[in-house]
C-alpha cells in the first residue's frame, strides 16, 4: 500500500494533530501536562497522557512572528530580557492564556528535565508556583566525565521509578511495562528513521534544503513514540533516498557550499536566513540535530543514557567530537554559528569549541548574533555581511584547495 501524501505533508498534519489532540483532551476534561523538550516522553506516552511542549510552542509562535507581545508582557512582569526567550514567551502565555498564532491548553501538571539546561528548572519552578500545579522533576546530571557514570545512571533510573509513581498517583492511570516496551520500540524506530533521513544529507548535492530539517524535527520532540511518526519519517527517508538516487534535490539553487548550522534556528527570520544563504549557493547539510534527536535504544538503561547524552549535557570534548563527525561524514566546508542570546549553555563554550573544530577539520567558521525568538536581537544587515564574508572565505579555501591539488 502506498501513501499518496508527501512526507512533509504527513509531518505537518501530525504536528497539527498533536496540538489539536491536546486541546481536545483538555476539553474532554483530561489532564494535560506541559513538558520539557528533552523529558523522556516515552513515560507519558505509554500512560496515554496528553502533553504539550512549551519550547516547541514558543518556537512555532516565533516562526509565525508572533513572539514579541509575549516577550514584552513577560518583561512587564519583571522578567529580564536576559532570560531565554522560550521561557519568557511561555511564562507570558501562562497569564495571557490565548495565542492566536497557535493555541495550547493550560497544564494540570509539569514534567521538567534539565538535561539540556539548568534554566529549565527555574522556568518550571515559576510555572509550578504561579499555576499552583505539581511539578515532576527529572534531574539528568551534566556529564563532566566522558561517559554517563554508573552513579548517574542509577540516579536517573531511580527517578524514572519515582516519576512513574507520581504520574500514576496524580493521573489515576496505570503504567504498564509491556506498553512501555512497545513505546520504546516505536520511539527507537522513529529515531532510526530520522537517522536514515538525515544520513541522506551526506550526498552531494544534498537532497534537501537543510532548513526543512528545522520544521521536521518538531515531530521527534512531540510525537516520537507514535507509530504514525515512524511511518512519516520513514517516508521522508524513502523520498530523500529516492532523490539522491536520481540526483535530485529540493534545494532551489546550485549547492556551491555545504555548511553545518550551529545553534538553535533564528525562528523569526527563518525565511530571510534561508534566502540569504541561497543567494550564495550555501546549503545547510548538517546540524547537531541530525544525530542528537535520534535516540535509539533497546532497554531502560540505554534509554536513560540516551537522554543523558543529549547536546548541552555532555562535556566539551564530546560536543566537539559529535560535530566533527557530522562535518566529516557530511562533507561540510563551513560552520555557521548562531550566537544565540537566549541560550547561555549552548553559547558558553562555543569559542573554544569553534577553535577546536576549526583546528581539527580546517573548515571555515562564522558567527552571527541573534536570538531564537526575540526579533529585537537580530540584525538583517549584520547577518548579510557575515554571510558574504563567510562565503568569500569558503570560496578562497576551495580555490586554494583546487590550486594545491593542481600542483601535486
Amino acid at each position, binding site marked *: 500500500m502506498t501513501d499518496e501524501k508527501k512526507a512533509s505533508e504527513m509531518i505537518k498534519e501530525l504536528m497539527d494533530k498533536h496540538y489539536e489532540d491536546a486541546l481536545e483532551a483538555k476539553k474532554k476534561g483530561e489532564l494535560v501536562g506541559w513538558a520539557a523538550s528533552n523529558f523522556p516522553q516515552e513515560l507519558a506516552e505509554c500512560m496515554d497522557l496528553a502533553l504539550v511542549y512549551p519550547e516547541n510552542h514558543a518556537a512555532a509562535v516565533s516562526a509565525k512572528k508572533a513572539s514579541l507581545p509575549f516577550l514584552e508582557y513577560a518583561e512587564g512582569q519583571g522578567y529580564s530580557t536576559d532570560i531565554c526567550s522560550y521561557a519568557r514567551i511561555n511564562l507570558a502565555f501562562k497569564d495571557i492564556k490565548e495565542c492566536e498564532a497557535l493555541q495550547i491548553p493550560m497544564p494540570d501538571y509539569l514534567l521538567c528535565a534539565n538535561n539540556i539546561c*539548568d534554566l529549565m528548572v527555574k522556568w518550571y519552578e515559576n510555572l509550578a508556583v504561579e499555576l499552583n500545579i505539581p*511539578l515532576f522533576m527529572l534531574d539528568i546530571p551534566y556529564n563532566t566525565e566522558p561517559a554517563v557514570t554508573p*552513579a548517574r545512571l*542509577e540516579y536517573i533510573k*531511580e527517578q524514572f521509578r519515582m516519576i512513574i509513581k507520581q504520574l500514576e498517583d496524580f493521573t489515576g492511570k496505570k503504567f504498564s511495562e509491556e506498553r512501555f516496551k512497545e513505546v520504546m520500540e516505536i520511539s527507537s524506530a522513529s529515531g532510526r528513521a530520522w537517522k536514515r533521513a538525515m544520513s541522506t544529507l551526506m550526498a552531494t548535492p544534498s537532497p534537501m534544503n537543510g532548513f526543512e530539517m528545522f520544521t521536521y524535527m518538531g515531530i521527534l520532540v512531540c510525537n516520537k513514540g507514535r507509530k504514525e511518526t515512524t511511518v512519516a519519517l520513514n517516508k521522508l527517508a524513502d523520498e530523500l533516498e529516492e532523490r539522491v538516487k536520481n540526483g535530485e534535490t529540493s534545494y532551489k539553487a546550485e549547492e556551491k557550499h555545504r555548511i553545518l548550522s550551529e545553534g538553535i534556528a533564528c525562528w523569526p527570520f527563518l525565511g530571510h536566513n534561508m534566502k540569504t544563504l541561497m543567494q550564495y549557493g550555501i546549503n545547510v547539510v548538517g546540524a547537531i540535530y541530525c544525530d542528537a534527536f535520534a535516540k535509539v535504544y533497546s532497554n531502560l538503561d540505554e534509554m536513560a543514557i540516551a537522554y543523558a547524552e543529549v547536546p548541552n549535557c555532555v562535556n566539551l570534548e564530546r560536543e566537539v567530537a559529535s560535530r566533527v563527525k557530522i562535518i566529516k561524514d557530511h562533507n561540510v566546508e563551513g560552520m555557521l554559528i548562531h550566537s544565540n542570546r537566549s541560550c547561555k549553555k549552548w553559547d558558553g*563554550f562555543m569559542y573554544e569549541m569553534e577553535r577546536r573544530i576549526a583546528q581539527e577539520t580546517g573548515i571555515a567558521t562564522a558567527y552571527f548574533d541573534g536570538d531564537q525568538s526575540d526579533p529585537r536581537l537580530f540584525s538583517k544587515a549584520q547577518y548579510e555581511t557575515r554571510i558574504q564574508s563567510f562565503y568569500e572565505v569558503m570560496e578562497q579555501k576551495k580555490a586554494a584547495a583546487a590550486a594545491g591539488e593542481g600542483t601535486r
Partner: protein
Amino acid sequence: MSNVNEVIAQFQEVVNQPGDHVKKYIAKTGNKAIGYFYYAPQELIHAAGMLPVGIWGGNIEPSSVRSYLPSFYCGILQTAFEMGMKGLYDCLDGMIIPNLCDSLRASSQNWKVAVPQVEFISLVPPVNRKTEAGVKFLLSEYENIKNTLERISGNKITDQALNNSIKVFNTYRQTMREFTKVARNYPDIITPSIRNAVIKSASFMDKVQYTALVEELIQGLKTLPVKDWDGKKVVVTGIKMDSPALLKILEENNVAVVADDLAQESRLFRSDILQTSANPLENLARYWSTMEGCSLLFDPEKKRCDMIIEDVKETGADGVLFCMTKFCDPEEFDYPIFKKRLDAANIPHVFIETDLETETDEQARTRIQAFTEMAAL
C-alpha cells in the same frame, strides 16, 4: 571599642588583599589551598588539611576572558576567569566548580582550557536533592572529590578528620548567625561595608582562626551601648553585594543592612550539618537536602521569598534591596515572584543591578535615594 576596631581592621585587610592573605597562609603552614564557587564541600577540603578558598571574582577588567566566555555572562565568572587566566589563582591547587546554573555548567568546561594550571574538580549537585536517590548520588560525587583531594593533598581524609571539620564548620555557622544578629544592634559600627568585610573574609581564612576572630568581635560589640538608629534598615537579597561603591552609597544614605539573603553571606551559614549518620560523608551530602532559600537550590515553592518576608518581620526592616547580579538567570527568574510576594505583603523593595565592580553605580545611587525617601512614608 579599640579592640572592636582592631578586629574589624583585620577583616578589612583580608578582603582588600585576599590573594596575599591566602599566599601568606600557604607559606606559613605549608598547606595547599583549593578554590570553589558557592556550595562546595568545604569540610572535605579542610579535612584534607587544605584551605578552602571561596572564589567570587574581583575588581578586574575582563579582557582575556573574552576568548572563552560570551559577553553576557555574569561578572563573577568574567572576572574569576580573568584572574585565573592572569595567574592570580596559581596559589590554588584545584578549583571545585559546582554545576548550579548554565553559566557554571559551560564554565566548568572552559576552565579546563583557560586556567589549566588550577585543576578543575567537578561537582554536579542533584536537583532532586530531597530524595534518597539524590542524596546517594551526591554521596558518590563527594566520594570522587574526596579521592581527588586526597591525591592533591597527599593526606587521607579519615572519618575522624571529617567529623572534626564538620564540627569546625558548624561552629563557624553558629557564630556567624550570632554575628548577624548582634551586628543589627550596632549599625553605626557594623556599617554595610564592614558587615560585608567581616562575612566575606571567611572565604579566604582558616575557619578556626576566623571563627575565633568573629567571636572576639561579637564579645567586643556586646560591651558597647546600643544606640538608636535614625536611618533606614534593609534586608538584602541576591548572589552578593560586595561592590565597595554600592556599599558606600548605602552608608551615605544611612541605610543599615540588618539581615541578608546573599549567596556570599547568610546562605552559607543559615543551617548546620546534622549528625544523623555514623558516616560523616553522608551527613555532608544530606546537608544539601536540608538547605533552603537560594535561587540555586531546587525550590518549587519559592520558599526563599517567604524567608525574606520573615527576615523583614523579625528585624523590623523598612524594606528589601534586591541586589541583582547582571546576567544571573537563576536570580532573574526569582525576581518577578519575589516582587509579587513582597507587594502582597506590603513590603517596600528596590531593585539594584550590579555588574562589574569597575563600573559606576549612578543608577543605584538614585534608586537607593528614592527608596529611602519612599520608605519614610
